[in-house]
């Protein structure tokens, strides 16, 4: 993929990381000291998304325009059914806009084939769901390794990277546990490790704390903040929780298919 803006993520930060991973700096998380301020990594112009329920059209996003800078941590709020997930799916390359243009990390989502979208997701997107969605038959480490099966990495390298990602999310001692042996908060940490293991450009989170108690939710938000601040991940998070939104640098409100 030629549209890939990796060059500015090469330089290293010497800022101390609060994580255990700080000692053996993982190669896959090269920190950029200064993401180009003002450079939009998510750019949407006049995006409309219309679903059809039978013959009945339902316009969920209505000429929406949006620009998100690289390295931002943004929250997206709005009533149920306002189209938050739909917007997130477009940004993640899971769906195409009905009209308008969505440019994500330099890729025109509307113009890509299904196969290209799959590769785009594998390269640029880390997805975090409300309900974790881990594979129950796989251990934490194996779940985290999943995205790396699409790469040419050796199994030793895959394992190493998965372990590093789990260390970043604070699960050093849970690597061989199965999802059912973990708490909700821990499961979500595994899911986050799975979302960052392939070093994506953008983390897309759909109500990541929706199923968690206050304490676990705060831990997850802390972790996301760390990923944003220390690892310079661009994060877009849908949430109903005002406390969660507070973590973000910008909070946007979606209502009736438009941003307020």
């Amino acid at each position: 993929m030629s549209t890939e803006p990796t060059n500015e993520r090469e330089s290293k930060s010497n800022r101390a990381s609060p994580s255990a991973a700080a000692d053996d700096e993982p190669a896959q998380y090269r920190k950029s000291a200064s993401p180009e301020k003002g450079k939009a990594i998510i750019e949407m112009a006049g995006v409309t998304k219309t679903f059809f329920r039978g013959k009945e059209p339902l316009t969920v996003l209505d000429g929406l325009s949006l620009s998100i800078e690289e390295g931002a941590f943004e929250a997206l709020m709005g009533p149920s059914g306002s189209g938050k997930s739909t917007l997130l799916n477009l940004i993640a390359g899971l769906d195409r806009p009905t009209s308008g243009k969505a440019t994500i990390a330099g890729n025109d989502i509307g113009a890509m084939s299904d196969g290209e979208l799959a590769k785009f997701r594998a390269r640029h997107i880390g997805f975090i769901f409300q309900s974790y969605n881990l594979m129950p038959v796989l251990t934490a480490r194996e779940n985290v390794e999943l995205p790396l099966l699409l790469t040419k990495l050796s199994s030793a390298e895959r394992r190493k990277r998965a372990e590093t990602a789990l260390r970043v999310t604070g699960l050093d001692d849970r690597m061989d546990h199965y999802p059912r042996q973990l708490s909700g908060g821990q499961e979500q940490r595994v899911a986050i490790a799975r979302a960052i293991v392939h070093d994506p450009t953008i983390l897309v989170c759909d109500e990541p704390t929706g199923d968690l108690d206050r304490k676990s939710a705060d831990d997850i938000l802390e972790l996301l903040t760390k990923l944003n601040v220390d690892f310079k991940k661009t994060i877009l998070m849908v949430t109903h929780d005002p406390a969660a939104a507070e973590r973000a640098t910008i909070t946007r409100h979606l209502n009736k298919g438009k941003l307020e």
Partner: protein
Amino acid sequence: MIRLFLIAARNLKRSWFRTTFTVAGSAVALVAFIMLRTVLWAWSAAAEYAAQDRIGTRHKVTFIMPLPLRYADDVRAVPGVKQATYMNWFGAKIPTQPDEFFASMAVESKTFFDVYDEMVVSPEDKARWLADKKGAIVGHVLAKKMGWKVGDKVVLEGTIYPGDWEFIIDGVYKASRRSIDDSEFLFHWDYLNDTLTGEEKDTIGWVTSRVTDSSRSADISKEIDRVFDERDTQTVTMSERAMNVSFMAGFSALLTALDVVSIVILGIMLLVLGNTIAMGVRERTKEYAVLRAIGFEPWHVRFFVVAEAATLGIVSGVVGVGVAYPFVNNVLGRAIEENMGAMFPYFRVEPSIAVLAIGIAIALAALASLIPSIQAGRVSVTDALRRVG
């Protein structure tokens, strides 16, 4: 790829109950399939392994009707006939075990083992037998089953020739070829004939000959029948193989039925596997969507489903063969060879049938997963991941 296969295979652990029942169901079907195929195989093996250079001559109407004794010499006189022997079906029972079935025959002792040279008997046993008017040679399977040893006195009850008949076991034979029944009871034709009077005396059941050139056995058979064309009793002569084939042709409807049944069994197995696979796919829709969201493509998901199914097939196949093989070879086969040796002298699972069964199990599972895998590949990621709220 291998990794993906192993992950898919692990899905089978998720619902132990279902997996166990599916494997058990498929394995039972496979065992039935293997037994049916083995019946069909064993049946045709009898024809397949039959000697080509051996021909039999019997009464034209039916083999129950006897031929005059002198026919044996007439057959020997036909050019191309190397050696000929004759025998009568005796039909004996063991008085204490009347349900025990075995072939018992009064044979012409001088020539019998020349014509049936794959029935191997030691020179000492043979010599002892030839010198003993009441002597008998028995198949090693029958001897073992009855606990008969050389020197034992045995009394049999005649069914065709009534009365108690006393024999001395002089030796055992062992077949060097699978088409031969290892449970026959053979004794001197003279011993029988000497007791007969009237019409029954000096008659024989049939004549069996070895020909010098097996490729000419059909011509020689015709030649023999021509000799008796003008006599009171006409004959039918055919090679042992042709006889087996024509015998089997009489059962062709049964054989076809067995074929159909084995296909029906496979059909049931396909449904069992298909149901399990479809259920698994339906439950895992969301997981497939997650894989797709991560960047896996539809063909990965299809592979995932087929891999899980193939594993189910492999396990079912191995379990099925693992049960059928020892069962047929050690229990069922032995029982059949002992009790139905005349029809199935060799009843064992052929390795090729075992391999075929495992192959079929895998192929059926893959086939059963075809439609579910296509459905799984088509799952709409956004729909599957959507949740209300």
